[in-house]
């Protein structure tokens, strides 16, 4: 081997050895856990991050405000205002009739007795039921004024039927009504933040629960119902939505002016407030609630009928296709 070639080979070998040694060292180093930061280091880090956080917050808010202004600057579509009961509904002109029907149905069927709700009179509902996903309907401040706005923006993909649309409207109306009963009030605390109650669900859970209070209530003992609803002990043995059902039932029983009476008594004990709103005694309110819940008890059996029917339908459909085939028919 000539001398220059020998030197080159020697250099390559040395470089490989050094490289391997370095890799080994770095491998060993990387396996060492990083030392835990000391209290002083953590304090320094926190102090350094404070101003950065404030600066980042201001920058984020400015960027979001800019985006909102851009959105505001885009042209808006024409809208119409529809009135149903005490509700103001802003919607597209082509959907005004639909909105009147849907809100009208919800109002008549679920909130008929609720007259005189300040929150409902104050709020504006913005309603849109689009075929496809579109930009949510934006309305001019002139249409809503300074009123709080409740958006009901539906697409056919998620709200396919009028039933689903009405359920969403019901939820929105209930959310507004609930704001008449702030959580600071006794009644508001008792109602909690549950959505619009499903009486069927409450009936199912209420009648199948092993609670003694529920059993007593079902046997017609008023004290049992009072305890089940958490009106004496503070702990409910029924789903929380049951409270909302009692409230709506009491308002129905009270007829005209019941909601206003309920608001008058919202800081009283819930049972007294309900009786005051209904204009009857607590026993009658409980009896009315129990009757309303039991009337909605679903007629459910083991869910085999529907399944079996669907399976049979599919089998028949496939068998029908099989017999109508011309190419592979057997006889």
């Amino acid at each position, binding site marked *: 081997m000539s001398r220059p070639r020998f030197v080159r080979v020697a250099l390559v070998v040395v470089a490989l050895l050094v490289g391997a040694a370095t890799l080994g060292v770095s491998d060993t180093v990387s396996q060492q*856990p*990083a030392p*835990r*930061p000391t*209290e002083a280091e*953590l*304090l320094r*880090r*926190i102090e350094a*991050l*404070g101003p*950065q*956080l404030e600066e*980042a*917050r201001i*920058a*984020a808010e*400015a*960027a*979001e405000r800019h*985006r909102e202004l851009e*959105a505001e600057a885009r042209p808006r579509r024409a809208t119409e205002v529809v009135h149903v009961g005490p509700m103001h509904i802003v919607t597209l002109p082509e959907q005004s009739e639909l909105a009147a029907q849907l809100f009208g149905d919800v109002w008549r069927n679920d909130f008929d007795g609720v007259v005189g709700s300040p929150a409902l009179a104050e709020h504006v509902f913005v309603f849109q039921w689009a075929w*496809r*996903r*579109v*930009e*949510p309907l934006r309305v001019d401040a002139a249409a809503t004024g300074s009123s709080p706005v409740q958006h009901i923006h539906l697409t056919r993909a998620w709200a396919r039927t009028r039933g689903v649309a009405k359920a969403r409207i019901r939820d929105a109306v209930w959310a507004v009504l609930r704001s008449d009963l702030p959580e600071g009030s006794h009644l508001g605390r008792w109602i909690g933040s549950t959505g619009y109650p499903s009486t069927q669900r409450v009936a199912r859970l209420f009648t199948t629960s092993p609670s003694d209070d529920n059993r007593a209530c079902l046997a017609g003992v008023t004290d049992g119902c009072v305890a089940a609803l958490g009106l004496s002990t503070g702990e409910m043995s029924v789903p929380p939505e049951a409270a909302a059902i009692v409230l709506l039932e009491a308002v129905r029983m009270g007829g005209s002016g019941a909601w206003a009476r309920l608001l008058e008594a919202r800081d009283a004990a819930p049972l007294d407030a309900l009786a005051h709103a209904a204009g009857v005694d607590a026993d009658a309110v409980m009896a009315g609630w129990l009757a309303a819940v039991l009337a909605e008890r679903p007629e459910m059996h083991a869910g085999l009928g529907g399944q079996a029917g669907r399976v049979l339908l599919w*089998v028949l459909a*496939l*068998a029908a296709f*099989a*017999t109508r085939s011309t190419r592979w*028919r*057997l*006889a």
Partner: protein
Amino acid sequence: MKRWLAVVTGSIALVALWALPPSRLELPPTQKLPARLRHEAIEAELRRAHAALRALRWSDSLPSLAIRAAVDGVALRPPRAEGLEAEVQAWEEAQRATLVALQPRDPDMVLGVFWQPADEATISGVPIGVRTRRVTFVGEHDGTPYCIHAVPYLTEPGARALLRHIVDLDACRLYAKYGAPGERIQEWLDASSLGFARVAVPTFAADYTRLQPAPRGTMRLFGLSRPLYADQNLAVQACLAGRPAACERAVTDPQLISPPLGDEAWVVANSPASSFGGGAPHPPFGYLDDGLLYELEARFGAEAFARFWTSTESVPEAFEAAFGEPLGEWVLRWIEAHVGLYRAGPSLPWSSLWLSALTLTALAGVATAAGVRRRIG
């Protein structure tokens, strides 16, 4: 043209008329702006640093306090609030009763349960990460081993409600019984943030797992389904497919057993806190493995478990030496007993194949019967 072809073509034309040309949908951007993401990232870093600082300050004071105040190896400090006397007394009695019932018991180990105001030893105005989750500290102070739960509380009503529930020692129960673990076992426990000893009642962990809703997108057919943890690491999936080596890796690889949430993992790695109670399900097997060590203890007995716990060997070797079978194989049988195994790979499960064949045979039978009975003319 065949009638059905005309119907299909007409339908396609109708859909095309309705949907074409494709309109450009301009929705207001809903994703977070980069400036907001930066703000959130800084806030998260601040939160983590602050949580580590609080853990560091608590760990500076609590062990010495526990060792000084311990009676029969136990130090209890209830929440400092008025009007809780009855609840506190019940809580203390429950704690001591739990400890008395522990057999065996390491006489050197000091246990502590300290209720701490959540903002104690913190800096006001700075967000605190993992602030109301129970913190466990494990270590040694002046030669005395300790296991301490610090229970942060925000308000008096909150403490009152929690007093009824915080009676279990969780991971500290094992420390109380078997003392300080071997060094390599402790490293393994640290890597998982005591994740295999979070629930002292293994059946609770198993039942809780069963009650979890199926992961989104899970196909359920005749009760058969993809397994839980389908979106987990490949080693976990391989374990669920019946490979013992993968099972061993799934429960020992530090990368696979570290806490799932960034804040928690960071604080555990950078402060004396050993674990945080509650929170999201931990890898590798979610809630199911939260009581794994207690299952081992119940299955093999205290003596064998003590051999494993105090072993100086690595986890797989200690396991085999103590329990007489390889770790991977035991974990495989354990996971099979709880959630079952599934076939790995892209092929269809046998159940789907034979159910399809059965359906086709039945339909062919119906079609044949109808065809045979058919009369022409």
